[in-house]
């Protein structure tokens, strides 16, 4: 592009298009009007999605980034708009989602004066971003945008905030030219692999009798799903996955042993404390996975693959740390592995699997009578979509049930708020996911509580005609909190029963087709109707009010302290 004189706002749009942006989520306002004015000239090249609340816009950008692997872009104004996106920024930081968030800001002459809609965005967002920067002059735009995108999508991905002062938007850049950033001297996104550590890891795995792998989102972020399967297959290593590691391995992959953690499967949790070599791959030993650190996998040697040096030894000491992108490091280790089989060790998972099937799974997905169950609904929908849908969840019981009872055939098919656990994430994230993967079926599982936190985004669905399938698992309770109250707080249901509106009528007001089912006999037909075409749809399923997610490892206890139906299981 030839150098020309442009307004800062136009230069900004050029710069983000130069980074490959073709979709923007956001909400306009006073301090960002010049950018929206410039955007008006590019509506043929950029799909702009108007949300109904800035929190909705940023969660949509997250859903879009998670499904597409691209940087999610969200543009909002200053002050309250900036504070409304804080939840999404924090969520993206904890879940390593690449975002560039642009907030408007008052002119530099007003900074620090408590001007109308002025808030210290950089100060507020520094602790929860990879980088947060205030653009004060139009000449900085090309540099700042290039750097922002580079930081967001390199290394351990994450959110970046650009706080864009109004005078930088309106001022003219004399010789604008977009820039490209590929190196920052103070920043090492990914280290080159340390061959000695690679050899040590391979040696440990080759000697292992009972190796066990823990799969996290790092594998998906590194696009290393195939490399992972080759690694596991060659040495015959069973593997469990974290919440964000769901769908990295197909559900029917023989070495896939299920979900780890608080509501994970029994076998992988028990086996964590029996294995001799624990291989963590792109996961960060979250407390919801480990429970009590002092009793966690003490018997095992630990190999930790991660892209982020600060994760090594943060919660669990690593005997062999392997820094780098697993896309590179896994094949290097695989090459040094002996072909191996661990038939007996793998067979030892079966007892716990069988026990869980009898005690929990059959009861949850094939109930004979009583109210519809959450797990049953999810399993039926998974079946009806041939396990090919993108599953988005909100937070709480709906999330744990969706994680437990959805099956997957394709990677990058499960989108949920893991680290921050943001209720209200579901509806907007599903919107973003459908925009990022328009050819796939996107199903959202959301509770009646979380739905009402961001249900204003039905307006976005209506205006953009976004064909998401929303399934409200309605139990008229804040179910996960209710579960803790039932189990740990003497059934004192403080502030958890909910009087709900007529969800079908709300959908109707937005022109979205909807049905409510309360009887098991009508569930299959309702699901078929929902999935019959690509239009948006809201299915309200009245589920058992007192449903509990089992198994459960109470917070902060040992991973073998697994409770089912109120009792610790024994094997």
């Amino acid at each position: 592009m030839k150098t020309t004189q442009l307004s800062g706002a136009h230069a900004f749009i050029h710069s983000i298009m130069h980074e490959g942006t073709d979709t923007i989520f956001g909400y306009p306002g006073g301090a960002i009007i010049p950018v929206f004015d410039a955007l008006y000239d590019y509506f043929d090249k950029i799909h702009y999605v108007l949300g109904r609340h800035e929190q909705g816009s940023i969660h949509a950008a997250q859903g879009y980034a998670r499904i597409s692997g691209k940087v999610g872009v969200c543009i909002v104004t200053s002050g309250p708009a900036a504070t409304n996106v804080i939840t999404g920024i924090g969520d993206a930081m904890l879940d390593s989602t690449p975002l560039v968030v642009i907030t408007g800001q008052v002119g530099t002459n007003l900074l620090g004066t408590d001007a109308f809609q002025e808030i210290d965005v950089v100060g507020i967002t520094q602790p929860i971003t990879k980088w947060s920067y205030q653009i004060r002059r139009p000449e900085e735009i090309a540099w700042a945008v290039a750097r922002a995108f580079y930081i967001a999508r390199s290394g351990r991905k994450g959110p970046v905030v650009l706080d864009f002062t109004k005078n930088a938007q309106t001022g003219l850049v004399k010789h604008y030219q977009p820039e490209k950033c590929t190196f920052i001297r103070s920043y090492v996104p990914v280290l080159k692999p340390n061959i000695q550590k690679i050899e040590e890891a391979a040696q440990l795995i080759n000697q292992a009798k009972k190796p066990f792998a823990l799969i996290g989102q790092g594998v998906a972020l590194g696009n290393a799903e195939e490399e992972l399967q080759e690694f596991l297959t060659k040495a015959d290593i069973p593997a469990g996955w974290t919440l964000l590691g769901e769908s990295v391995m197909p559900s029917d992959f023989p070495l896939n042993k299920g979900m780890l953690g608080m509501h994970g499967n029994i076998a992988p949790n028990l086996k964590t404390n029996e294995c001799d070599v624990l291989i963590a791959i792109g996961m960060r030993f979250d407390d919801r996975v480990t429970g009590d650190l002092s009793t966690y996998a003490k018997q095992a040697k630990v190999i930790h693959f991660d892209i982020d040096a600060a994760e090594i030894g943060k919660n669990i000491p690593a005997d062999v740390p392997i820094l780098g992108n697993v896309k590179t490091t896994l094949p290097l280790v695989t090459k040094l592995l002996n072909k191996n089989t661990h038939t007996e060790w793998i067979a030892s998972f079966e007892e716990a699997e069988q026990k869980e099937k009898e005690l929990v799974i059959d009861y949850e997905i094939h109930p004979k009578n009583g109210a519809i169950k959450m797990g049953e609904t999810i399993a039926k929908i998974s079946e009806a979509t041939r396990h090919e849908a993108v599953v988005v969840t909100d937070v709480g019981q709906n999330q744990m049930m969706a994680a437990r009872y959805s099956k997957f055939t394709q990677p990058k098919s499960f989108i949920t708020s893991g680290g921050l656990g943001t209720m209200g994430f579901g509806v907007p994230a599903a919107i973003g996911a459908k925009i990022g993967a328009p050819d796939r079926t996107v199903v959202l599982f959301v509770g009646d509580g979380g739905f009402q936190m961001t249900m204003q985004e039905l307006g976005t669905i209506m205006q953009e005609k976004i064909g998401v399938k929303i399934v409200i698992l309605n139990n008229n309770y804040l179910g996960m909190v209710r579960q803790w109250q039932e189990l740990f707080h003497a059934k004192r249901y403080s502030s958890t029963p909910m009087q709900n509106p007529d969800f079908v009528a709300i959908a109707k007001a937005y022109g979205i087709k909807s049905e409510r089912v309360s009887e098991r006999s009508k569930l299959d037909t309702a699901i078929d109707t929902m999935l019959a075409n690509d239009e948006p749809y809201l299915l309200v399923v009245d589920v058992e009010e007192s449903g509990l997610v089992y198994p459960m490892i109470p917070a902060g206890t040992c991973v073998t302290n697994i409770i089912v139906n109120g009792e610790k299981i024994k094997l």
Partner: protein
Amino acid sequence: MKDSTLEKRLYTVTVFSENTPGLLNQITIIFTRRQLNIETLSVSPSALKGIHKFTITVETTRDIIEKVVKQIDKRIDVLKAYYNVDEELVSQEIALYKLSTEKVMEMGSVESLIRRYNVRILEINSSCIVVEKTGLYEDTQNLFDELSQTIGVLQFIRSGRVAITKGKVERLSDMLASRAAMIEDEDIEN
């Protein structure tokens, strides 16, 4: 056996960073999150143009300081962060003491003050004398305690620690020059 990583002691954290606005905040919030009190903090331009050096002292365990330093090192604008214990460092602090001229004269002579405490005089006027002492924390503290108990100290101020490692260390300029070679190429076109 007692785990030495869980014993508290004084650590000196050194941070080299780009001179970008808000960096001090980025660093201090990492200590705040871990409930650590910063004992001393000094920030100044380093020998390399555009690069600032932070020297921070904090009392904590090795287990925690390792994690904190990794978190600091992770910040985009931080070039390098590391920590040392006192044995690995040469460090100094500077302290200024404002004393009453009348009280100093009562001691006998100004000469005795200078000789006994090895201080420098920066200012003398009819009402007060300002003296300077450099040394370790204990040195400046001992003088403060002694003067407080004898002639009294009108005002007292102490800098944070500045420190330099004793061993031969990699120079920052060399490290920066070799940095590009440490980095794995990423395919990040989208």
